[in-house]
């Protein structure tokens, strides 16, 4: 069964450092997303990406965040200057864009900012 792959599974970084979280969505999917879940809280939408541009973003997705699809297969989330409150599980998801909108999620990257 096709999978969304995320790397690394766990990233520890110092406050103020830049991090890049990587995702390989399912190959024929057209829509890509980042979500995050702070420990004990809801899964929250960050950003959606379609046709090589951001289509929607939440209030969480401020100027410190950016996304890229540099080579047609990878989909990355960059946090320029991490804060303690960025510590969370970050999930990448993709969907085909046809039929019922069932997303496929990756297994997540646990980001710990110290």
């Amino acid at each position, binding site marked *: 069964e096709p999978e*969304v792959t*995320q790397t690394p599974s766990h990233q520890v970084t110092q406050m103020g450092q830049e991090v890049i979280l990587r995702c390989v969505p399912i190959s024929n999917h057209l*829509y890509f*997303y980042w*979500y995050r879940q702070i420990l004990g*809280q*809801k*899964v*929250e*939408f960050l950003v*959606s990406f379609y046709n090589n541009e951001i*289509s*929607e973003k*939440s209030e969480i997705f401020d100027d410190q965040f950016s996304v890229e699809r540099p080579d047609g297969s990878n989909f990355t989330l960059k946090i320029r200057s991490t804060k303690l409150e960025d510590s969370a599980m970050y*999930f990448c*998801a993709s969907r085909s864009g046809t039929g*019922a*909108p*069932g*997303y*496929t*999620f*990756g*297994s*997540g990257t646990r980001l710990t900012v110290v």
Partner: protein
Amino acid sequence: DQQVKQNSPSLSVQEGRISILNCDYTNSMFDYFLWYKKYPAEGPTFLISISSIKDKNEDGRFTVFLNKSAKHLSLHIVPSQPGDSAVYFCAAISLNAGNMLTFGGGTRLMVKP
């Protein structure tokens, strides 16, 4: 802003019995409702969805019921199995508003052998 709400943080049922997970929403513009299952250290796994124009969708042991007038949906799992023990998230999507999923807070289901 809690557009999707799961009021029960946990539910415990006996193996073989029915599990009923509930979800309420406030936004009448949602087009689809979805249920996801999540194990620790894994991403959410899609289980079943229902269009806002339907009132029931069934897939094997899983059935989702939608009551639009009450803005309420439920997931029934029957018979429940120990492997069903996980956190279940209700989510909703509005196709005209960015296609992003709005999640409920989750319900932890424990199925006891």
